[in-house]
């Protein structure tokens, strides 16, 4: 029996804390994210179509770079995503190591292949932009090299995670590598300031505004938002698959499959 004073002294969990607690439950996570994914894909497709229309069809060529400027609508959002995904992977890795939350572990681990994909797109699109603009596909410039190191870090996390049989032990080792590798992020960001590089400095700043024309800026920002929805949809899809894989023998997985028959 609880008295009036007991109920008053008990800390009331707010809605956000309750929501986070619920997300830790695999069946609830599977069900909830299954409803979100189609919306994320729809937003990704709509924003990509809009961004590409503005950038490739409606937008003008650059006075200096010519038509090759159209590659930046792919290269720049992919480069931003490669770093953002690494940051989120390292943060989730830290949370997973400290609080041992299995779903966060899974989310950190499934981020790595998506990050690797965006880094490959960044490097190839950048290289194809570099040939007509700089006259070369590749130089061992600080920005390009540190981005290549980022790709190796993503591949290292994937490799380490897959090399250990026990998934939770594997995730802990790979999370540690992800956290250590985060030291590369400021190097990528500040490489154009710290060293004399062929790669140009930032044209867009969160604080200081932008030095590029709005006809180029808007499609770039729209494509950057689209990429975030791609990441969200892909991340949740991969996490759901990983949960099914790890919980094969659990009752909730069988219930989910029976419901879908």
């Amino acid at each position, binding site marked *: 029996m609880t008295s009036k004073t007991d109920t008053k002294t008990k800390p009331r969990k707010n809605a956000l804390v309750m929501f986070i607690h619920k997300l830790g439950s695999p069946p609830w996570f599977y069900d909830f994210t299954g409803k979100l994914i189609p919306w994320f894909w729809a937003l990704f497709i709509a924003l990509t179509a809009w961004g590409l229309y503005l950038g490739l069809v409606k937008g003008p060529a650059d006075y200096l770079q*010519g*038509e*090759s400027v*159209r*590659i930046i609508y*792919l*290269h720049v959002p*992919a480069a931003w995503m490669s770093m953002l995904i690494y940051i989120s992977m390292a943060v989730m890795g830290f949370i997973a190591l400290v609080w041992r939350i299995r779903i966060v572990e899974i989310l950190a681990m499934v981020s790595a*292949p*998506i990050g690797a*994909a965006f880094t*490959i*797109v960044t490097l*190839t*699109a950048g290289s*194809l*932009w570099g*040939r*007509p603009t700089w006259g070369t596909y590749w130089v061992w410039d600080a920005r390009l090299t540190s981005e290549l190191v980022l790709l190796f870090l993503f591949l290292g996390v994937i490799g380490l995670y897959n090399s250990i049989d026990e998934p939770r032990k594997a995730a802990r080792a790979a999370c540690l590598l992800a956290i250590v590798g985060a030291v590369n992020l400021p190097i990528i960001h500040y490489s154009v300031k710290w060293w004399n590089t062929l790669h140009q400095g930032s044209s867009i700043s969160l604080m200081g505004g932008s030095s590029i024309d709005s006809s180029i800026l808007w499609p770039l920002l729209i494509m950057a938002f689209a990429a975030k929805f*791609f990441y969200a*949809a*892909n991340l949740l*899809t*991969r996490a*759901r*698959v990983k949960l*099914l*894989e790890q919980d*094969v023998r659990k009752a909730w*997985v*069988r219930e989910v*499959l*029976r419901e879908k028959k």
Partner: protein
Amino acid sequence: MSHMPFILAAYSIGTVVLLWCAVAPLIRKKSITRDIRRLIQIEERSSDTNS
């Protein structure tokens, strides 16, 4: 120098990489659900024969 081949190559590679990134988990999911369904069938059959 025409920039068109570079633009086409960049977007083609980008599309292939991101499309594979999106499709790979769906293929994996299909194979896992097929395996789990098979496992359930085997378990149900063995429990029927035991009873």
